[in-house]
């Protein structure tokens, strides 16, 4: 820096410093597109660390225009008026996102011709986005469409992998809409109610503040690994408030870890607050539509349920009726052992009925999301042992081997339901294996979860193994109840933050595995 004779900075230098260090973006570009200069603030708007970095990548200012024809408009105005005020256009950021820029500039002439222009370069994204977002989300009452429009706007400012709208009700939440952003992530399943307790969403509901998870591979929260596998590496949850109650959240997932710096957070927060009223309307509309759907569903389920029950009842009732009739008519003439045999058929039928009915009831509750889960830290090993012991003592035609490597870490979930999951898998294992074969159960601790596996000797048609976990219409199954066990397992496993899968078929046999989240979570 040049100095005056007395050591003070020269006027030129003072102005130069003013430009360089100004918090306002300043620039100069030439008509042919080359860049004269720009200051640090302008470079930062577009996501570059310094003017040097910007100039290394951008050689023609048209590169940053989302719509290059806008520059032609700009040049026209400059030709005509010699200046522009608040000329807005959308510019590309270094990370692929974009920002709305407003330019106020004056023309520079050389030999009477427009050569260049210089002026201020401001980020007005907030304002533009607010307008856009509010408009887009109010444009539709149907949640999926509204959120999709909103997502389009958001995507340009903050490229994301996944966006979900989640509605909160009491102690549980439900994903209403889930969208994947450009390319990467899968949409998440919607519709099922999940308990808030122990979830990252709960944290946001309690505090009323946004929350960020920088790296889902750390699996701090129950669903983090599910998100990781769906392509979301970091995520933030933004509350929508009605007075001081959090009635919904926008959950935004990005493909890179640590994708939420202060700038991104405040930008999205602004958008989300602009969307709040519209979301309220959408949810109201959605509630009403759901009530109608629900009634239709209930009607259909009632029919299916009754038909299913009737189907399950036929055999047992026929047996009980037939047996009772025989006993009544031939009591005196029947030898005692025969009487006892007949009575035992009645008892078996009654027992079968009880099992069917309990299972039918559970299934209905499960599907409606009404099944209650009592989620807390618990000892998984004890649960596994209890279930395996119970099966081993009542099924003597199989050998049950429980293998737990070492002391298992504390698990997180509902122990009763976890027991039911294993119970169902064992039931299948017995059904599809031969007499005197061995069924092996093992539990292996992984860094962020416990993996439980059930292996039975035998074979399986593994071509359609994804379909194994789907609901089969009960009436199309050979026997009442077959085909539902794995479906029920899946609903239960997923509701507790785990995943379940067909783990392969080898010479050893057929294996199914599922994951259980770890316990000892910090209280949300």
């Amino acid at each position, binding site marked *: 820096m040049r100095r005056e004779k007395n050591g003070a900075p020269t006027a030129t230098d003072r102005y130069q410093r003013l430009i360089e260090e100004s918090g306002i973006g300043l620039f100069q570009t030439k008509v042919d597109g080359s860049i004269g200069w720009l200051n640090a603030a302008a470079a930062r708007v577009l996501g570059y660390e310094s003017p040097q970095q910007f100039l290394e990548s951008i050689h023609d200012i048209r590169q940053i225009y989302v719509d290059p024809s806008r520059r032609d408009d700009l040049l026209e105005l400059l030709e005509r008026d010699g200046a522009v005020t608040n000329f807005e256009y959308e510019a590309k950021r270094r990370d692929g996102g974009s920002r709305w820029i407003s330019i106020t500039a004056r023309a520079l002439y050389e030999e009477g011709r427009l050569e260049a222009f210089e002026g201020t370069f401001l980020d007005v994204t907030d304002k533009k986005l607010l307008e856009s977002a509010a408009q887009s989300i109010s444009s539709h009452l149907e949640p999926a469409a509204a959120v999709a429009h909103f997502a389009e706007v958001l995507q340009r400012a903050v490229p994301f992998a996944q966006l979900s709208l989640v509605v909160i009700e009491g102690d549980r939440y439900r994903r209403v809409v889930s969208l994947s952003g450009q390319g990467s992530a899968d949409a998440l399943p919607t519709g099922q109610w999940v308990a808030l307790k122990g979830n990252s969403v709960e944290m946001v509901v309690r505090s009323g503040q946004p929350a960020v998870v920088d790296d889902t591979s750390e699996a701090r929260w129950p669903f983090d690994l599910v998100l990781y596998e769906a392509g979301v590496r970091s995520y933030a949850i933004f509350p929508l408030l009605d007075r001081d109650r959090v009635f919904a959240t926008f959950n935004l997932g990005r493909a890179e870890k640590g994708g939420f710096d202060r700038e991104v957070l405040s930008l999205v927060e602004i958008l989300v607050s602009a969307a709040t009223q519209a979301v309220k309307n959408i949810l109201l509309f959605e509630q009403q539509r759901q009530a109608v759907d629900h009634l239709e569903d209930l009607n259909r389920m009632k029919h299916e349920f009754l038909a299913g029950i*009737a*189907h399950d009842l*036929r*055999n047992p*009732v*026929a*047996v009980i*009726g*037939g*047996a009772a*009739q*025989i006993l009544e*008519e*031939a009591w*005196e*003439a*029947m*030898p005692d052992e*025969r009487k006892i*045999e*007949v009575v035992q*058929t009645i008892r*078996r*039928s009654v027992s079968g009925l009880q099992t069917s009915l309990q299972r039918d009831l559970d299934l209905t509750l499960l599907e409606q999301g009404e099944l209650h889960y009592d989620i807390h830290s618990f000892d998984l090993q004890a649960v596994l042992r209890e279930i395996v012991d119970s099966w081993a003592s009542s099924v003597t035609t199989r050998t049950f081997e429980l293998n737990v490597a070492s002391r298992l870490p504390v698990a997180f979930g509902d122990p009763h339901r976890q027991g039911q999951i294993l119970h169902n898998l064992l039931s299948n294992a017995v059904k599809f294996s031969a007499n005197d074969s061995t069924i092996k159960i093992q539990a292996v601790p992984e860094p962020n979860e416990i993996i439980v596996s059930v292996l039975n000797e035998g074979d399986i048609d593994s071509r359609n193994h994804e379909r194994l976990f789907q609901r089969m219409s009960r009436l199309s199954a*050979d*026997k009442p109840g077959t085909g539902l066990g794995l479906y029920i397992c899946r609903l239960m496993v997923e509701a507790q933050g785990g995943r379940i899968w067909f783990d392969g078929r080898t010479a050893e046999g057929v294996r199914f595995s599922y994951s259980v989240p770890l316990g000892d979570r910090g209280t949300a």
Partner: protein
Amino acid sequence: MLKRKRWGKLDPASSFGVDRRGGATKLSKGDDEDSSCRIIIADDADDVRYLLRLVVESHEAYKVVGEARNGREAVDLVATHHPELILLDVSMPVMDGLEAIPVIREASPETKILMISGLDASYVATAARELGANGYVEKGIGRNELIEAISALCP
């Protein structure tokens, strides 16, 4: 007019003895239809087969010669024994009752087929008849009605 049989005294290996209660119909004297009706029972539920056997064998002239747990086994037994009648359940694994009808008719054309259904669907009865079954009863029916239905096919 259907002929009714008396539930006479039977050998110890069979089910039970004389039915002295009301409801038993009287044997018309001189009724000489003692030709044995050999019957096969096909149903996947053990207890249903057990009870059907009790009922069937409480009849002097009826004898169960085999039990099948699915359509495949039913066909094999019919081909081996050529019984006069088969009691055939509709819903069974491997091969269900409806599928088994044409196979049974081919293996043993003289065997009468009495379908026993646990389902309510009306189309099943029609389908069974069209496929060649000789009769159709529902599982909930009483013992007398079952015997009647059998006698209609197995005099």
